[in-house]
């Protein structure tokens, strides 16, 4: 419906004129932040052009099949396990009433408070010679059959039991709020519970379930500590070996690129499956009403739901507490307190920086009046998909190059000897954390920001107040809860982070996660219990607190 007078609107010339008019400083700032976040990936891509290192072809011949095979074994086995545990428990708590359902509903989230590598240490202790299982069995006068879990099967079990809550949370949300009316319709049509679940609810919930599953798989591919401890060769352990043992950055970069490729394939698969079948239509809505059952059935459900909670939380925590008592005297000293404070300090600084970046990214994109900028700004949150080890390598390359250039220039031009500016400093570490955890901060802030109607800031502007002041006076007070949850969530994630920290942490600084890893690597896994418990308890308290905060809203 182009009109005579309007046709020149779409000429290139007038488009460019408008683009020039609409480009403001916010558009440029948004692009700058996205570029800053994307720098590690760009660095890896550029480095790829320099060709692989000497050992690359050796690695391709001997190890690559192992890396790929193990990674895919983990992807499939973990998918299977987390789907059964996550979807099954979600359906039971959303659909049925049984004893302690309310308590179990939030206990099921708690395994997320324990990093996978710590679950791995704990289970190694349970199944080891002279481990907790043997002690208990002997005490019960039963014969001990040793199960070796230090292999890829054990790794898949450990990763699944600690990561299934991602699937649980996303599918429970769907079961609770999205399809109640359809379920009622199905019941009214005389369709039984089993058939309703498999034929109706499961296909409907698929996008939500797969969204949770993708998060699990990203964490599986990100894992370093558990795989390393169980002696399973994966991409991340390969990257570490290339970087530290072989000292061949080029090979690490090639492995990183392959890993990024796998992750993005997963993301594309997730997007494709969402588009492929539009089941999340607006027709599905309504709360699900819980059904009561007979007493024995209710207790059966209770035990079914309890199993993953016991496996994922109580057994590892119990094992760690037992070890903590054995090693308290040795581990808990002044140095340890200093280390904890350092760890909390780094996590706090990082969460503040990351939340600042996320907030700026959200609002700069909003204030920019070019539509394309808004889609580009969302690229900034893809850092979460990139495994920590890869982010670390990606940060290492440009900062090292810059520092070398800087030292050289200072030396030749000014004759001043300087040290590294970024590399091996807190700056590089905090930068890497922000890249990786930007999405963790972005999502809660964005969702609260979306609840503030656009007309609120617009009316502030109409009253003569500019963007920035409007944000401080009007929007910030209204999105405070979102910002607070973002700070807490990033804080927890930084505290738990291992691979990235191992590569980038400054020499004289240590974190609880690294300390636990060092103990475990030095054949002192019992001593790893206290730093691990510190991480778990600091991660658990905010999870409960956040849950309360969200319920209050």
């Amino acid at each position, binding site marked *: *419906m182009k*009109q005579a*007078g*309007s046709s*020149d*609107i*779409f000429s290139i010339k*007038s488009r460019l*004129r*408008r683009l020039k*008019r*609409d480009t403001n400083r916010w558009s440029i700032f948004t692009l700058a932040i996205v570029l800053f976040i994307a720098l590690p990936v760009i660095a890896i891509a550029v480095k790829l052009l320099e060709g692989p290192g000497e050992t690359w072809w050796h690695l391709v011949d001997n190890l690559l099949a192992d890396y790929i095979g193990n990674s895919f074994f983990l992807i499939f086995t973990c998918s299977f396990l987390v789907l059964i545990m996550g979807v099954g428990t979600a359906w039971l708590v959303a659909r049925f009433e049984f004893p302690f359902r309310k308590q179990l509903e939030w206990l099921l989230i708690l395994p997320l408070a324990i990093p996978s590598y710590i679950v791995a240490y704990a289970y190694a202790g349970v199944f080891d010679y002279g481990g907790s299982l043997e002690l208990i069995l002997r005490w019960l006068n039963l014969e001990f059959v040793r199960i070796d879990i230090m292999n890829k099967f054990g790794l898949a079990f450990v990763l699944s039991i600690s990561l299934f809550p991602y699937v649980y949370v996303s599918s429970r949300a769907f079961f609770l709020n999205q399809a109640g009316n359809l379920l009622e319709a199905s019941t009214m049509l005389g369709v039984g519970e089993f058939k309703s679940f498999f034929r109706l609810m499961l296909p409907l919930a698929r996008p939500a379930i797969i969204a949770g599953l993708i998060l699990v798989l990203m964490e599986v591919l990100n894992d370093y500590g558990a795989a390393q401890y169980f002696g399973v060769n994966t991409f991340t352990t390969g990257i570490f070996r290339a970087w530290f043992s072989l000292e061949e950055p080029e090979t690490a970069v090639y492995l990183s690129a392959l890993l990024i490729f796998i992750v993005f394939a997963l993301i594309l698969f997730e997007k494709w499956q969402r588009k492929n079948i539009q089941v999340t239509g607006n027709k599905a809505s309504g709360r699900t009403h819980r059904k009561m059952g007979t007493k024995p059935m209710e207790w059966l459900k209770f035990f079914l739901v309890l199993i993953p909670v016991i496996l994922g939380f109580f057994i590892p925590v119990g094992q760690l507490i037992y070890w903590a008592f054995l090693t308290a005297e040795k581990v808990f000293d002044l140095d340890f307190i200093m280390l904890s404070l350092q760890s909390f300090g780094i996590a706090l600084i990082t969460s503040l920086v990351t939340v600042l970046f996320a907030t700026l990214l959200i609002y700069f994109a909003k204030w920019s*009046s070019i539509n394309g900028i808004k889609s580009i700004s969302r690229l900034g949150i893809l850092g979460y998909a990139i495994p920590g080890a890869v982010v670390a390598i990606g940060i290492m390359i440009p900062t090292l190059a810059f520092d070398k250039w800087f030292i050289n220039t200072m030396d030749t031009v000014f004759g001043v000897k300087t040290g590294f500016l970024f590399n091996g400093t807190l700056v590089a570490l905090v930068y890497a954390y922000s890249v990786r955890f930007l999405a963790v901060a972005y999502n809660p802030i964005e969702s609260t920001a979306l609840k503030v*109607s656009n*007309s*609120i800031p*617009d*009316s*502030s*502007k*109409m*009253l*003569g*107040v*500019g963007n920035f002041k409007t944000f401080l*006076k*009007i929007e910030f*007070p*209204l999105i405070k809860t979102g910002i607070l949850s973002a700070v807490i969530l990033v804080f927890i994630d930084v505290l738990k982070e291992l691979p990235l920290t191992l590569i980038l942490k400054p020499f004289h600084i240590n974190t609880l996660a690294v300390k636990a890893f060092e103990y475990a690597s030095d054949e002192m896994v019992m001593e790893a219990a206290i730093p691990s418990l510190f991480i778990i308890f600091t991660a658990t308290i905010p999870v409960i607190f956040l849950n309360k905060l969200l319920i209050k809203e």
Partner: protein
Amino acid sequence: MLSINSISKSFDKGKTFALQEVSFNLKEGDVCAIVGESGSGKTTLVRLIAGLERPDHGSIILNNKELSSVKKLVPPEKRKIGLVFQEYALFPHFDLLKNVSYGISKLKNKKERALEMLDLVGLSGLEKRYPHQLSGGQQQRVALARALAPNPSLLILDEPFSNLDAMLRMQLRSQVFEIIKKTGVTAIFVTHDTQDALSVADEILILQHGKVIQKDQASNLYIKPNSVYVASLFGNTIQLSKELQTAFDCPLNPNCNHAIRNENLSINEECEYVTHARVLKKTFMGNATQLLLKLDNGHQISVVTKDTNVADRIKIGFNSTDVLEFAG
């Protein structure tokens, strides 16, 4: 004082036009209503004037200052235009005093001015209340006070009464426009309700599919609408097709379209053009009755009458002076 010059705005990369070549002028102190169905582009038009949207083409000039064009854009906060949003958009974390004084930070007597404005809208004494403690009508008046407080050169009200029920709406409408007249501010208000427009606007601008259909004074629009569409906005109209013209035996200019307003049809009275009809169906509508008529030539029309007791067979007619004529 306000001049809009062939403004165009498209969405979805030019696939749909919200506004096409819209032009009009507004005099100082006038109250202008922009009337149109939803999707006619009326909200887009006021958002363009406010600076919250950017035009693809054309320019907006207020008091000889160019606000929007393809090359230049004055940001909304620098335009000195007051905007009352459809959903009021009061700041939920501020009390009324802070809400109203928010835009007048540059004045010294900030507090007095805010209290004065609250007094003007009849809410003095409530300055310590928070928006959620107010009724819809009160929130509306706070939004008005807040928009008027910085002394804007132009006030825009976007669907100001659409969130209120019918009784409150009438009451508030007269209150709000009394206040606006008192301050003498030039005002534009958007509505889909022609009653709103007719009762308070000096001038009315009719938008359809992003184009200006007609702009005139309220009384002129009613008497001399320039299209069947405009006529039908201000009450039920019946288009006088060729068949109807034959039925009533009134030959009209074949090069033009014609219509007659429902209220100008008389039942069982003497008129210039008459015909007889059979009542097929009566629908009781409270204060009126809708009749489905079958005219003697077989044509069916539907009319509304105040008369609740109509016979099964009636005489229906109209006078030539009431016929509305539109250029084909």
